[in-house]
């Protein structure tokens, strides 16, 4: 006995005819959700802005002249200069008044020479920084590669095979991270001195690999645990060996985890300061302990430090950006249905 009333009761979800709009098309989304989306976006932008202020400031400082860098109140608008980069990449000598006049009279100077001359200095050679940045690249890339490669193999074994004392082994691996790393710097320094690993690339790669390995085993085990065994089992039944199945089936599925682990391992070894300071000097010195070295004697070279930090930031940003698609979880998980 349905009677038409002027205000029908709102439909509830279990009534037929109830319609929920799940569409994400802009022209179908109501005004209110659109405002909500905008508000969320604005909040995200504000948070991102707050987070990025130090980086932004560092970028600005890198292009400031010495007086601009230390001026109070800080300047936002200034005449950009490459002074910071020049002091980062060169070694310089202070000139006497007589020398200065002599140099100023010369006309064979390039722009960098002119720039240093303004500060009464002359460029006497290339600084160590490019080489140290290269050291950083070699050591981080190699240690990341090894810790992820060994990590993924160990994690697969821990995830899939019955290993005697598996839990104890896993705990042992985890316990490698329990001691604050700084505690062992002196013993490792002495050891490295003794066995000739001090200030070598190999020594640093070995150290960072062993630091990252425990972390990468645990992280990757989590990812591999989530890949259903059926994938490999299907490959095994279909005529593949265990290693082939691992390479063709497990690895592609674990790409997300491998990417995440790579970024973490890379950032750790790229940023590591304490060990690098203790264990390297000329040959294998990495970038982090060298940036403070540009502090210099004639006052703090803020522009040079900022320029060094900026250069130091770029490789990690590139890698993280290249892998960002995989860092979002769940992209590759598709065709196994969980009933």
């Amino acid at each position, binding site marked *: 006995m349905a009677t038409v009333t002027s205000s029908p009761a709102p439909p509830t979800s279990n009534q037929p005819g109830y319609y929920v709009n799940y569409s994400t098309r802009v022209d179908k989304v109501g005004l209110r959700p659109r405002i909500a989306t905008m508000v969320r976006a604005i909040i995200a932008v504000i948070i991102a802005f707050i987070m990025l202020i130090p980086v932004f400031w560092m970028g600005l400082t890198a292009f400031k002249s010495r007086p601009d860098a230390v001026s109070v109140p800080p300047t936002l608008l200034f005449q950009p200069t490459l002074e910071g980069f020049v002091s980062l990449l060169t070694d310089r000598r202070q000139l006497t008044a007589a020398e200065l006049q002599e140099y100023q009279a010369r006309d064979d100077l390039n722009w960098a020479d002119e720039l240093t001359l303004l500060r009464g200095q002359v460029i006497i050679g290339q600084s160590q920084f490019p080489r140290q940045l290269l050291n950083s690249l070699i050591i981080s890339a190699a240690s990341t590669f090894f810790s992820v490669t060994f990590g993924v193999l160990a994690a697969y074994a821990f995830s899939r095979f019955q290993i005697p004392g598996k839990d104890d082994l896993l705990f042992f691996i985890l316990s490698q991270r329990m001691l604050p790393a700084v505690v062992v710097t002196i013993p490792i320094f002495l050891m490295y001195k003794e066995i000739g690993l001090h200030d070598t690339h190999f020594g640093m790669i070995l150290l960072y690999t062993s630091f990252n390995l425990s972390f990468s085993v645990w992280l990757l085990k989590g990812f591999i645990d989530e890949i*259903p065994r*059926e*994938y490999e*089992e*299907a*490959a*095994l*039944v*279909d*005529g*593949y*060996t265990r290693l*082939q199945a691992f390479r*063709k*089936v497990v690895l*592609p*599925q674990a790409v997300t985890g491998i990417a995440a682990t790579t970024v973490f391992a890379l950032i750790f070894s790229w940023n590591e300061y304490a060990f690098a300071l203790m264990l390297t000097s000329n040959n294998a010195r990495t970038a982090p302990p060298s940036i403070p070295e540009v502090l210099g004697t004639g006052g703090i070279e803020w522009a040079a430090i900022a320029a060094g930090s900026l250069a130091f930031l770029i490789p990690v940003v590139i890698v993280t950006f290249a892998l960002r698609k995989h860092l979002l979880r769940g992209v*590759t*998980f*598709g*065709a*196994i*249905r*969980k*009933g």
Partner: protein
Amino acid sequence: MATIELKQVEKKFAESFAVQPLDLTINDGEFVVFLGPSGCGKTTTLRMISGLEAVTTGNIYLDGRDVTWLHPSDRDIAFVFQFFALYSHMTARQNIAFPLQAQSESRDQITKKVADVAKMLKIDHILDQKPGSLSGGDQQRVALARALVRRPAAFLMDEPLGALDAEFRESMRAEIKQLHIRQEATTVYVTHDQIEAMAMGDRIVIMSKAIVQQVGTPSDVYHNPSNLFVARFIGSPGMNLLEGQYVDGRVMLAGGSTFSIPNAYNVALNQALNDTGGKVIVGFRPEAVRVGDSGEIAAHVYADDLHGGYSMLHFELDDGVIVHGRVGRDSHHTIGTGLQFGVDPAMVRFFHPVTEQAIQPNGVHA
């Protein structure tokens, strides 16, 4: 195609049996269904046949060849998984070609075989899609194609329809059966769904608690369950099971009604029930129930559900036991009214109350 032979195959996980010693021969081209509740050992058995799980003791023969300790890839069998196990980073075509690549066949051969099997399963049009964009039914067809493409000696299927929606399940059931008939492939199929088992199996192996309860044709396990577990497990609802007292050719039910039993059972019951003092469990299927005034058992109507083609009538006996009877859809009964019913003598079965085993009539040996 091949025969599969299990000899005293058993599997233990940390001292407890996953599969008790099991003997079974699966004939060439036969479709055998392992049926049982979850955790009964049916999937473990299937995985032992495939080699994905090692046996604890016992031997497995494929076409007479002892494969007990062979790697799965050396057994020439195909496995279809419940959740399809399609590789999401490959297209359907690449998924199907995957087993052939392991055998390093020529590219032309692979292309031809994939096309053939895709045509057979009617999935030609989706070959270039990734599994993630396919419906459940199509995903399972691709998984079947991947199994079929290699023409293995035997197919092992682990609840292949379990992850499908009900509407797909029915049609895929027919498709798999049809494939089996065309391929004449020895197939071992695991399910917990008795309808699937009854519809598809040449023979059904019913397992419970790591033990094989009965091996027989669908009709056999339905009409002649070998024990109380099978009687309850097969059929929906399962067999009516009433406690009774056997006295001289008649059985008195707990509620007081008595009914006469077929002659063929007299001697057997006399012998078997010596140690129980005549206590027996009487079993009959709902379709053995005959409602009518000539019936020997009194009851009243408890519920009456129309199932479309027939009605399922539930009676309550005097002692509160509910009996299910299948009656014509035109018979109507008011709930609460008393009535009489009988049981078709040819369809009555008896079980020992202690051992729970079926008591076979004279001249029949289990």
